[in-house]
């Protein structure tokens, strides 16, 4: 019985995460229906959902696999623009926005997974700092490549121009009458129908949690964590290092792609420049602050740090300064031994569990 308690305790933590997210969703929906949220607050809901998925998926690479990836926004942009393209070109065929949104997210996930696989082949041969630098480079490359894309749609189907030297414009697509331009190179996606919804964001978070948490608690997750803890030992017990690194990396990229599709369909105008290095770092901050490998922590950190700059708007010019100070203070306090001791005293139940465990 005692031996079963550890696995069931972990399973319980998983269910708490599902329950917590569901309760938060219900409360926010109720507040929204009661009209307690203003427009700008409502506008934050979908991006927060996207960033939660980004943070949880990046945690799979950084926390669970233990490799620092600095190009996560690159996969998000692949998902965003492929998702927008899918949703816009299916606009006439599938009138249901919910279904179109779902298809867009799947397309975004699949495209990001393919790109993740291709990027993963060279990247996963490296380790540590080198891997981090190369992911950074790939993130920037993806952004630049998408900046070159001109995509349009008409009754003949999709038209794609790859505008490398900048000489081509949207008129080179030669769209038939009634066709529309979806992505206009550096100007990004314009005139996108904003079909993203908070409910879709909630469902995406739940699916992400299900995939990541179940993966971690399975044979595959154990193999991935074994590689993180000791690569040589993992190899010596017959684990295929490349395969499991790739599974983690591609899963992470696919989830980022789905989040990107949702994010892209939340704005009528979106440029690839939005998914730059800063976005990758922002998500990394969420993950590190929430605790490496801690899914629940990633969610909380994302929500707090995403709302914080908005909540600090009253401070006008000092907004980012205060944000930075808060960030430093939180990092210091959550990592100090005194703080951990204090938390243990405040939560006697948890203390008890630790002794028993």
């Amino acid at each position, binding site marked *: 019985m*005692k*031996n079963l308690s550890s*696995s069931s305790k972990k399973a319980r933590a998983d269910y708490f995460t599902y329950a917590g997210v569901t309760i938060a969703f219900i409360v926010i929906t109720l507040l929204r229906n009661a009209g307690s949220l203003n427009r700008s607050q409502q506008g934050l809901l979908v991006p927060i959902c996207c960033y939660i998925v980004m943070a949880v998926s990046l945690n799979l690479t950084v926390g669970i696999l233990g490799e620092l990836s600095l190009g996560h926004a690159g996969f998000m942009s692949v998902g965003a623009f492929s998702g927008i393209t899918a949703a816009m070109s299916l606009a006439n065929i599938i009138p249901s926005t919910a279904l179109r949104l779902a298809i867009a997210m799947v397309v975004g996930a699949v495209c990001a997974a393919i790109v993740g696989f291709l990027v993963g082949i060279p990247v996963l041969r490296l380790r540590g700092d080198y891997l981090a630098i190369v992911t950074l480079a790939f993130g920037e490359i993806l952004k630049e490549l998408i900046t070159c894309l001109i995509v349009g749609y008409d009754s003949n189907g999709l038209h794609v121009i790859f505008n490398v030297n900048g000489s081509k414009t949207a008129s080179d697509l030669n769209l038939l009458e009634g066709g529309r331009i979806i992505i206009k190179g550096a100007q990004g996606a314009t005139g996108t129908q904003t079909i993203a919804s908070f409910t879709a964001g909630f469902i995406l978070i739940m699916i992400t949690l299900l995939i990541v948490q179940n993966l971690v608690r*399975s044979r595959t997750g154990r193999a991935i964590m074994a590689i*993180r*803890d000791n690569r040589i030992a993992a190899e010596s017990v017959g684990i295929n290092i490349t395969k499991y690194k790739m599974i983690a990396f591609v899963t992470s990229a696919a989830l980022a792609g789905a989040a990107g599709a949702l994010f892209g369909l939340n704005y009528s105008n979106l440029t690839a420049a939005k998914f730059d290095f800063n976005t990758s770092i922002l998500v990394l901050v969420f993950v590190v602050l929430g605790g490496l490998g801690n899914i629940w922590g990633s969610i909380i950190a994302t929500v707090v740090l995403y709302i914080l700059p908005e909540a600090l708007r009253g401070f006008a010019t000092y907004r980012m300064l205060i944000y930075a100070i808060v960030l430093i203070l939180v990092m210091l306090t959550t990592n100090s031994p005194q703080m951990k001791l204090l938390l243990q005293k405040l939560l006697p139940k948890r203390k008890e569990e630790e002794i028993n465990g």
Partner: protein
Amino acid sequence: MAKKFEKGKMVPVPSTAIIPERDIDKTPILECRHLGIDFGGLRAVDDFNLIIGRTEIAGLIGPNGAGKTTVFNLLTKVYQPTRGTILLDGFDTAGKSTEQINQMGIARTFQNIRLFNNLTVEENVKVGLHNQEPYSALTGVLRLPKYWRQEKASHERALELLSIFNMQDLANTPAGSLPYGAQRRLEIVRALATNPSLLLLDEPAAGMNPSETAELMENIVKIRDTFQIAIMLIEHDMRLVMGICEGICVLNFGRVIAKGTAEEIQANPTVIEAYLGKKKEG
């Protein structure tokens, strides 16, 4: 490759099987022929020949820097040998990776302990069972019936294996917080979980006190008797080596200087010279 024991049939209780004294005349489990590796100009191991029987406990000894761990790294393909062949159960292991070597039947422990420190003791053993209770990543994510079945089987198997060293009660402890001796024992359990036919132990008694070492000796013999596998160990504790090893191989400067039983090795002048230096004439 045919394993001696089918899955689920290896029960860690002392068996009454009669172990032949030296069974190398039957097809050996491991055979090294003229094995060698160079690091730049240095011949770390040269012309290493060895035959290990199916249920033999073999010892590999030698002064520091003799190349003992290098031999283990060659056998497990951490290093690819420069020269020579390694036959495992009659199969050539040329071109195999470390991970494939493990699947072929060689498991090992490390001189400097290499556990998965952030995983629990039970999870460490379950990682060892990785290829014994397989299911796909998708099965795991969707938690299909096969997932529950295999997880239950590997949970039971892990506890069964941990019971060899009476470590069942530590199952939920993080491996990194175990005391030193327990970490060494866990490494052995994890290696056994991969269902090997040859177990390589790199200094299993390092850092253990005499009573722990005595217990370890008993356990090594018990593991061999129970699982009917060959065990090869590197060790500096001569009481352990002379006490349980049926065949001993002495390595110095990457070359085998003596082979034989404990008595033969103890009486060998070359070995004494390698360990103690040459006696000055006069």
